[in-house]
């Protein structure tokens, strides 16, 4: 009797172990395939950045070299100019977004504010609608405002696109602060502006940095809006990448893509440090 029970138990264990081992190899295979699917295109991009010549039927570039890197990083090249324009536009967009989002976020961090939900949804709109159609018409409106093809026009397009991130993250950042601290400061005789600058703002800084990172990246990577509003007068890196790629100049477009890739991955790894869990939990509330 007891022997049959132990036999049964050991066979159940064997099945369990078999299933577990099968599960392990199955999951390893799945992750490997996922890794191949992710890194394959990246490797192809990296190969193109160091290929001087690569044509059918060569499986890898038939001439390797850094000739195109020299072209790209020549201070008078299109890429250097576009990189400068892109970074300037991104920094300006961050400034515009922070300027309007800090007061808005602070006001909306109070749950009792009337029409709070309506305003939160208003700032969500630019992300809830497919914005290609909107950008197209924005370009037409900007013609009559003389903003088409100007840096200012592109900054405005990027800012309105980044506004949702900056407003929503600011609201979350200000909501995560203990309201007792500012009340204590006011009770000790500090004015409202002094309290805001010295008590509230420093605590919201990590959240605001995270918001800035989002706006910066969105602006740096933005293609559609710039395509309609900025081109051809304003050339940002994504526009340059597009035209180089369409001309079949894969080396230049791949190096440009790599320049855009580095901050994207870098910030992805950094963002965890600024997006604190207590801020994340307040997001969208």
């Amino acid at each position: 009797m007891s022997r049959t029970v132990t036999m049964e138990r050991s066979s159940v264990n064997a099945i369990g172990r078999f299933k577990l081992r099968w599960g392990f190899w199955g999951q390893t295979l799945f992750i490997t395939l996922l890794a191949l699917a992710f890194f394959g295109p990246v490797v192809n991009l990296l190969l193109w950045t160091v290929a001087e010549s690569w044509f059918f039927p060569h499986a890898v570039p038939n001439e390797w070299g850094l000739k195109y890197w020299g072209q790209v990083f020549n201070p008078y090249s299109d890429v250097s100019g576009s990189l400068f324009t892109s970074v300037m536009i991104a920094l300006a967009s961050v400034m515009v977004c922070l300027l309007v989002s800090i007061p808005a976020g602070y006001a909306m961090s109070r749950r009792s504010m009337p029409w709070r939900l309506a305003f939160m949804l208003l700032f969500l709109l630019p992300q809830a609608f497919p914005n290609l159609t909107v950008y197209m018409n924005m370009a037409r409106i900007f013609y009559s405002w003389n903003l088409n093809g100007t840096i200012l026009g592109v900054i405005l397009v990027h800012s309105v696109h980044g506004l949702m991130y900056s407003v929503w993250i600011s609201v979350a950042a200000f909501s995560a602060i203990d309201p007792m601290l500012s009340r204590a400061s006011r009770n000790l005789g500090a004015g409202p502006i002094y309290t805001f600058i010295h008590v509230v703002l420093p605590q919201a800084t990590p959240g605001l940095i995270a918001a800035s990172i989002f706006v910066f990246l969105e602006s740096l990577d933005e293609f559609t809006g710039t395509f309609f509003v900025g081109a051809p007068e304003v050339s940002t890196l994504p526009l340059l990448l597009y035209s180089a790629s369409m001309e079949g100049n894969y080396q230049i477009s791949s190096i440009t893509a790599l320049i855009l890739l580095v901050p994207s991955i870098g910030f992805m790894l950094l963002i965890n440090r600024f997006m604190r869990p207590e801020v994340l939990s307040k997001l969208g509330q």
Partner: protein
Amino acid sequence: MRASTRNILMIGPAAVMVLALFLYPLGFSIVSAVTHDDYSLTLTHFIKVFELYSKDIQFTVLIVLSSVLILALLSIAISAMIVLSPFKRLVAILSMLYRLPLFIPFIVAAQMMRTFLAKNGLMNNTIVAAGLLTPMDTVSFLGWTGIIITFVWKQLAFTTLLISGAMAALDQSQIRAAQNLGASRLRILIQIMIPQVLPTIGVALVLSTVTIMSVLSVPLMIGTGSPTMITADMAFRVNSYGDYHVANALGMISYLICAALAWFYLRQTIKEKGAMS
């Protein structure tokens, strides 16, 4: 200063920006789609759209639906593995891996895929080198499959981030109870976890649809020839003919494709807001 005045002053600038730079052009696009130049109502632009672009509309809907379906399946599989897998080291690798494309711009993804999926791209070259195909049998994936692959490749990080977050936030005692009662992992996933994270899956997929309908670089760089996505048609209509009416009528179609799903999304957010506040 009264509290309401102060609120208006603080929110005002941001709200005016959205109104002037987003809602105004949005309204403009709707008006332009249904009027002539003299603002008299008409449906001729829509008739023209269906005459010229009905194939492209079908093509776009097909691409959106297949991308969203593949995204749902893959991100549920990855999220479930992260939450349920007993192999902690595999989970750590997977959660690092799936996030990598999160901030990679679409234009960069498009450029990568343009070279990777081409007839003599790295993918086909690897398959040939592995001896699975001869160089003559390889096909280029640039076209509708390439567009879907690129959208899924880039958007998977975002949908998985949302869905795995929702799965991790589920009540663990429920899952453990089901495990103790002998339920298999697959059964736990289908009967306990998915029903509870369904709203999040919906939100993730709607936002992905909106993103797909906003991206111009992928159909321009990956899609070759005809049929193409209506986003590419819009850009062509505006840049080549300056024909905003037909372009905006196409834009309305792209709103409609999102609207069916967005309705669900907004209803969910408002319901959750109502429950929380």
